[in-house]
């Protein structure tokens, strides 16, 4: 008898635009102490499946049309809300994808941790506090006493995810649902968290459902795997079977999308152009003022984000910039496009001293260097259609008559492989990959000489990620555009970058041709970074 038995689950969303069959007949079993991995791209229904088990879907628009989920002799889909509430956070716990938004920013970590203990186990405040601190210690958070009084925003992403895990495990549930718990995290942290979950699962004998779009991770942690597409399970089986003998084409596509090869041959432009003085970054230092805590301490303290970094970039070259969050890579990128001011140093692009430009001069030069942001949704104005968005960018270079403008817009769309009928739509109507294409098109519209891409694929599903990377490489070749490409994902960097620079705590620790860095890392930090990848991507190790 399995711990959880789900049979023919169907969840439909009744929206103004019709019915969306989010989950359409999903069945699975979960055994005690085992891990079930559910893989699929966003929109495949993997999260909806799990949320519906706990009654966490907003009704309306969601409606559970049929199915059963037997847990402990009870059908979770049919019990009243009050009963279900006694299961939630008690016998079935859940860890959500985004620790930034899933923790209440208005409550202390402690208060949030204590809550389920008080509700379900009837603990006294003191006992619950002790238990919560123990849980924090267990997930590797030092000084739990002090941390309990902190607010989520005072924690880094990795710490927050640990808190989420501690919250899920504190009540010692029978089932833990982990919904992409590491997607938003750096590689090194991702490795730690996965290790942690696995250890805890073993020691507590917890059954787990692990949801991810990343096959590599699922392969590392799951016993059984379910591959979902459009609300339907397309393939299921033991881990090894799925990975080594994928039957369904979709599964195969997922596996192929994982970037793990070196840069495709012939896609490198830099050598043919020669010279490396297209962009020169010299001894750049950037710091932020930090708010003082005391009334009498009036002089500003500073936090140095980038400390004396020098880099060069050749015309048409792609430079990969690697480092974990807080390493200063984003700050450096923002400084290059002049969103942040330098404290010291210079940035020169060809003949122009970028770091010295100001006012109208700066604005006139801006089209020469563009940026692609990490979150394509946040970087697109939600109230502008694709048409408006691209037209605005194109007209930045001067007014055009309507026909010419329309032709250019269509050409841009073709470049990023979007269709003309997309023009009238708003950003929210697109998928993540499409949005990033729009953002890329917008940047291209200005015909920049330099493109700074700040984690452009991190928020995307693997298959989409592969497409976007391919697109960027093509565009790089077509427009002979130099590019600085920032990512925490080493696989991606290896795939796209000609040279790679590693940043650690605001300093440049290593810089060289990508393959050299990957095969013979010199700096200890680079070595650690690479080993972290190996731990989490067990699949690669197995190969």
């Amino acid at each position, binding site marked *: 008898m399995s711990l959880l038995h789900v049979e023919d689950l169907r969840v439909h969303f009744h929206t103004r635009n019709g019915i969306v069959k989010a989950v359409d007949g999903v069945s699975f079993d979960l055994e005690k102490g085992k891990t079930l991995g559910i893989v699929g791209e966003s929109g495949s229904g993997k999260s909806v499946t799990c949320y519906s088990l706990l009654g966490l879907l907003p009704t309306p628009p969601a409606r559970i049309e049929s199915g059963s989920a037997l847990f402990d002799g009870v059908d979770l889909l049919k019990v009243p809300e009050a009963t279900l509430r006694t299961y939630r956070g008690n016998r079935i716990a859940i860890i959500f994808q985004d620790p930034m938004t899933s923790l209440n920013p208005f409550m202390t970590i402690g208060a949030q941790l204590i809550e389920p203990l008080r509700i379900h186990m009837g603990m006294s405040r003191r006992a619950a506090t002790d238990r919560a601190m123990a849980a924090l210690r267990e997930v590797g958070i030092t000084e739990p006493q002090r941390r309990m009084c902190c607010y989520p925003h005072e924690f880094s992403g990795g710490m927050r995810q640990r808190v989420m895990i501690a919250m899920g495990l504190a009540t010692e549930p029978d089932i833990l649902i982990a919904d992409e718990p590491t997607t938003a995290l750096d590689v090194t942290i991702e490795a730690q968290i996965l290790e942690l979950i696995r250890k805890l699962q073993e020691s507590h004998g917890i059954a787990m459902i692990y949801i991810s779009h990343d096959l590599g991770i699922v392969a590392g942690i799951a016993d059984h795997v379910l591959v979902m597409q459009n609300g339907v399970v397309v393939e299921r089986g033991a881990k090894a079977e799925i990975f080594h003998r994928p039957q369904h084409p979709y599964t195969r596509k997922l596996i192929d999308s994982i970037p793990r090869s070196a840069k495709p041959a012939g896609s490198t432009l830099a050598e043919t152009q020669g010279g490396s003085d297209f962009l020169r970054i010299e001894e750049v230092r950037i710091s932020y003022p930090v708010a003082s805590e005391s009334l009498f301490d009036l002089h500003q303290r500073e936090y140095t984000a980038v400390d004396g970094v020098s880099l060069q970039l050749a015309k048409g070259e792609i430079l990969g910039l690697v480092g974990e969050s807080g390493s200063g890579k984003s700050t450096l990128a923002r400084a290059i496009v002049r969103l942040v001011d330098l404290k010291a140093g210079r940035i020169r692009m060809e003949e122009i001293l970028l770091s010295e430009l100001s006012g109208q001069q700066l604005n006139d030069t801006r089209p020469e260097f*563009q*940026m692609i942001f990490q979150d394509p949704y946040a970087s697109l*104005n939600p109230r502008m259609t694709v048409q408006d968005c691209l037209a605005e960018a194109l007209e930045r270079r001067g*007014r055009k008559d309507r026909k010419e403008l329309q032709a250019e817009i269509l050409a841009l769309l073709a470049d990023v492989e979007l269709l003309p009928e997309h023009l009238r739509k708003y950003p929210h109507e697109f998928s993540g990959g499409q949005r990033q294409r729009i953002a890329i098109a917008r940047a291209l519209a200005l015909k920049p000489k330099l493109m700074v891409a700040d984690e452009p694929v991190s928020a995307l599903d693997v298959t989409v990620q592969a497409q976007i990377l391919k697109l960027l490489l093509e565009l790089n070749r077509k427009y002979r555009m130099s590019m600085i490409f920032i990512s925490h994902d080493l696989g991606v960097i290896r795939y796209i970058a000609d040279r790679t620079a590693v940043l650690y705590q605001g300093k440049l620790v290593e810089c060289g041709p990508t393959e050299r860095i990957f095969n013979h890392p010199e700096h200890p930090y680079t070595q650690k970074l690479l080993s972290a990848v190996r731990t989490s991507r067990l699949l690669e190790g197995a190969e």
Partner: protein
Amino acid sequence: MDNARSSPSLWKDAWRRLSRNRLAMLGLCVLTVMVSLALLTPWIAPYSYSAQDLDLGATPPSGAHWLGTDAFGRDLLTLILYGSRVSLAVGFLATAVALTIGVLWGTVSGYAGGRTDAVMMRTVDILYALPFTIFIILLMVIFGRNMFLLFMAIGAVEWLTMARIVRGQVLGIRRQEYIEAAIVMGLPRSRIMYRHVLPNVLGVIIIYTTLTIPNVILLESFLSFLGLGIQPPQSSWGLLISYGVETMEEYPWLLFFPAATLSLTLFSLNFLGDGLRDALDPRAATD
């Protein structure tokens, strides 16, 4: 017209979505009817607005006077109709003045930040604190009394809160990535504010505007008491209501009908405002 350049698609789409919202359309209809009645008043009003019948005095609604008469024997329906000309004009135009100044001020203040923001917001504080009654009296002395001045005076106070609210919203939006994207594109500041910041604070602006209009309509009666604004035999809803209060025990209809008219207008405005806010948010339609 060059649609790519001039009007962003947002407005066209908004209208399409709005026309599907039944409550909002109902509100729009009521408002349209009100405005047309106000415009047509001289032709459709049952009596002349100054016609008195002192011997008749105040009478409850009857066949001859649908909404009754006031203490001068004037037809209440006629008074409300003529009053709507004043009140709607004041309500919409003065709000427009407040809206224009407040939104501009708030947007610039919030977007510029730093010292500019501090100076602009402290200016708002200063204007809040100045003695309003004296200000009005001065205005009248310097510029004489007319309707235009009334709009200016009302706009002058109402924009302050609008500016504060808009600034608060802009502060939140200023750090959004799409604003940074616009900066990186090298767009001029004015265009960023106009095309990227403003459309995204519209929701709040609309809601606050629907709250401002009734405020303004009522403020008019205070200014009329000060001598600015309208004079008898002209009337306005605010004046009718404030005189209606005095006689609410004896002649309840003199309070009820003007107040009901104002409430009806406000309800319609609210439905329309909520509808417009939703319509201007492309995400609301499919979410």
